[in-house]
């Protein structure tokens, strides 16, 4: 077993890896949401001046990643590795979006958990001594995702109340060895979990078991409890998924208090990013960008200021394709846990 591994699924980085900058670029709908004022850039035109949704997503990635590097006070050539992914087949948004950067690239697919996966691997590369700086991120586009996974946009169908709304945008962070910045200290990598959910319009239910598996293993591996964290944020479970996690965790012997209870610490990026009643997003936000932009815009500044001392960030993904769905397969879920300590974090809590 590796010297940094603790317990079954968790690694503790030897010196921690700093998140030295975070950038988020979103589209109009996200800009109109409760987190609107926190995003770096809000692009009114979801086509972003491009010819297709796919190229638009690539442009979201390109401009936002450039912004992340610029905010870190670095140049693209200072980045040793680029790790990112999206939802489109063969991750074309990421490859076409980053082609001009000309830096060594690992393309990732973790569905909507990609931000957790890219942060995990980017941090491991640095902690392992393989890189000084890594640029990691994730993106999605509502229109591109609808086109690929669901129905044409102009089709007059109804969305069920359990469905969620894919976030359009890109979130990216630059990781480095040193500096007074929020610090990634532990990583709990999730397993593929399948509890037999087949309803592609109820992703929260499909992914909740994966989040629970990461949470339980994380607490067992580290010996902590949910109350040792100021914030626990899952990726895009939405209302239904979060409630299911609370219920499942109770069965496992852990009490999770949702943030809508006073003093609660458990939230979900999909719940934070949209006002589900005013914006008609039903269960909440989803897509790789959901957790990515919410982390970069909303949580990162709070980690920077020390308002959040210790956070467990768990992007969640539903590992389905149109082929697997049509062939009647259930929807397995995956989740990636990353512990981030804020500046002046709660040592020894």
């Amino acid at each position, binding site marked *: 077993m590796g010297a940094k591994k603790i317990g079954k699924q968790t690694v503790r980085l030897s010196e921690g890896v700093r998140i030295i900058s975070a950038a988020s670029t979103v589209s109009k709908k996200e800009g109109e949401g409760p987190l609107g004022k926190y995003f770096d850039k809000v692009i009114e035109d979801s086509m972003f001046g491009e010819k297709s949704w796919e190229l638009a997503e690539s442009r979201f990635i390109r401009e936002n990643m450039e912004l992340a590097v610029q905010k870190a006070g670095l140049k693209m050539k200072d980045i040793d590795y680029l790790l990112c992914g999206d939802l489109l087949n063969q991750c074309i948004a990421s490859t076409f979006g980053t082609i001009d950067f000309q830096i060594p690239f690992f393309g990732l697919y973790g569905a909507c958990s990609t931000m957790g996966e890219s942060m995990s691997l980017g941090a491991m590369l640095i902690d392992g001594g393989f890189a000084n700086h890594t640029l990691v991120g994730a993106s999605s586009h509502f229109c591109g995702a609808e086109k690929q996974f669901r129905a044409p946009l*102009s*089709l007059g169908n109804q969305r069920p109340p359990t469905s969620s709304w894919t976030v359009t945008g890109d979130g990216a962070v630059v990781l480095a060895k040193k500096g007074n910045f929020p610090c990634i200290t532990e990583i709990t990598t999730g397993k593929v979990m399948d509890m*037999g959910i087949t309803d592609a319009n109820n992703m929260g*239910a499909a992914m909740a*078991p994966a989040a629970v598996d990461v949470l339980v293993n994380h607490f067992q591996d580290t010996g902590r409890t949910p109350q040792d964290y100021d914030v626990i944020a899952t990726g895009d479970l939405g209302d239904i998924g979060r409630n299911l996690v609370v219920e499942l965790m109770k069965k496992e012997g852990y009490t999770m208090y949702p943030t809508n209870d006073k003093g609660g610490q458990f939230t979900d990026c999909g719940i934070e990013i949209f006002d589900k009643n005013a914006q008609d997003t039903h269960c909440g936000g989803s897509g790789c960008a959901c957790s990515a932009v919410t982390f970069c815009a909303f949580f990162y500044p709070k980690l920077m200021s020390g308002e959040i001392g210790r956070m467990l960030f768990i992007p969640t993904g539903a590992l389905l394709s149109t082929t697997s769905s049509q062939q009647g397969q259930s929807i397995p879920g995956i989740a990636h846990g990353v512990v981030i300590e804020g500046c002046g974090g709660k040592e020894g809590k």
Partner: protein
Amino acid sequence: MDTSKRAKQEYDQMVKKASPNSPIFMDCIKAFFSGGLICGFGQLLLDYFNESYTEDEAALLVSITLIAIAAVLTGFGLYEKIGKHCGAGTIIPITGFANSVVSPAIEFKKEGLIFGTGAKMFILAGPVIVYGTLTSMLVGLIYYFVGR
């Protein structure tokens, strides 16, 4: 986490309890009235066309008019907004069929006229045509042997 068959069944029950159902009653009422409105409008058109055309021509003209209206509304992105509320009311009539052909035609335009618009135009309406034709053949056969 327990992933046994029993745990999966329990989870399934838990999910069913936690997930709200679609508001079926309101959906039905909205569909009833919007679908009825479209059909009523079709009847008005039929009466109008009947004044100057034969019965067959008038029926054809009603279909053409409704399809044209639905296609234009789809093109302007309005049909999806109506369909969101009306559901089956705007899907079942011939206008829904037009919407299901025009929307992929627009969506896949970027993949070119042949592999995009041409090939994808019937991804939604195709099954309706295939099984509609099959059913009519079946009914025709039954009629041939039994009905005459």
